[in-house]
């Protein structure tokens, strides 16, 4: 820090945490060195590359492909949000991407997904702070509720959903590996329970990497970015999902905060403790 010309965080909230907490003393000494550079993704790979049809649709409706170099231009698509032809064509592209993913999932895992179910995706490194465990526990909660509901009422109460996990754990990280094992075990029980059927399917997709992400992300409809506030430095897959017309359920952490500002909080499912509440809450938990 002493030898550096500048010091930067990788999302607005992260840069603030560096100043307030992690490097507080250094910030006192060198306030002018501290900057923010929010991480980003390239639309060349994550939109024009992985979702060619959607990119074509954008170009057609914007009547120019200049948006490829100036992404802010796609905000003009807002005026077509209620246009039924646009909606229909947009949905057909999403459906084709979902079919492609369902075929890949079937090839890899022999699990058959209903293409009309909601594709709920959580792909990222497996880590306790990212809270894949919370998602897994929620799936069990949902499974128990389905089992508790009378069979004739299940169809109206539950929307068919396919929950897709992906990601790798560090080799020595035992809890992360246990989380993967739990998801695998849940998936085996739920997918083979005739009471559940299409209402809930759980898949752990093998070998999550960039190439597979290019198939997974364009097919997603709901994407989970649910880390404890203050722990995710930025996160960039949230941006990739946004580019491909996927809704985010997430906490006010990392780049989610800036996505909420840009896309509107009303277009995101935001929940959980905010970063300024975390300290007090932790104190409460540990001395409960």
């Amino acid at each position: 820090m002493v030898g550096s010309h500048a010091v930067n965080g990788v999302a607005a909230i992260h840069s603030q945490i560096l100043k307030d907490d992690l490097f507080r003393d250094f910030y006192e000494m060198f306030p002018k060195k501290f900057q923010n550079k929010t991480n980003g993704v390239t639309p060349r790979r994550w939109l024009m590359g992985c979702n060619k049809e959607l990119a074509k649709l954008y170009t057609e409706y914007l009547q120019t492909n200049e948006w490829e170099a100036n992404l802010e231009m796609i905000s003009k698509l807002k005026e077509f949000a209620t246009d039924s032809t646009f909606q229909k064509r947009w949905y057909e592209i999403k459906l084709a991407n979902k079919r492609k993913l369902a075929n890949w999932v079937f090839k890899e895992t022999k699990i058959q997904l209903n293409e009309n179910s909601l594709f709920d995706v959580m792909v990222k490194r497996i880590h306790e702070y990212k809270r894949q465990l919370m998602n897994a526990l929620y799936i069990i909660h949902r499974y128990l509720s389905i089992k508790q509901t009378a069979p004739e009422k299940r169809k109206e109460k539950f929307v068919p959903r396919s929950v897709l996990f992906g990601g790798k754990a560090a080799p020595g990280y035992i809890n992360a590996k246990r989380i993967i094992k739990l998801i695998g075990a849940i998936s085996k029980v739920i997918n083979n329970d005739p009471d559940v059927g299409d209402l809930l399917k759980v898949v752990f997709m093998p070998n999550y990497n960039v190439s597979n992400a290019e198939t997974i992300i364009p097919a997603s409809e709901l994407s989970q970015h649910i880390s404890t506030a203050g722990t995710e430095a930025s996160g960039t897959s949230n941006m990739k999902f946004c580019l491909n017309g996927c809704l985010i359920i997430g906490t006010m952490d990392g780049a989610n905060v800036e996505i909420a500002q840009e896309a509107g909080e009303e277009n995101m499912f935001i929940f959980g403790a905010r970063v300024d509440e975390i300290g007090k809450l932790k104190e409460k938990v540990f001395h409960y």
Partner: protein
Amino acid sequence: MRNSEPKDYIGESLLKVFHAITEGTFGFKDEFIALIDTVRNRNDLYLLCHDFYSYVAAQEKVIKLVS
């Protein structure tokens, strides 16, 4: 709040989920108990149990939107 039950912190729905795991619904009892023990013994470093309920509420909003 000192010295009160961790159960009050965890809450009913989540206790049911933990119960399903400890009962062996998903097999591998010992390993999965070790896993949930990382959040249910006054050691919930990532506030999973705290955020769980607002997470469920957010998921309800998702269900409302798509149904």
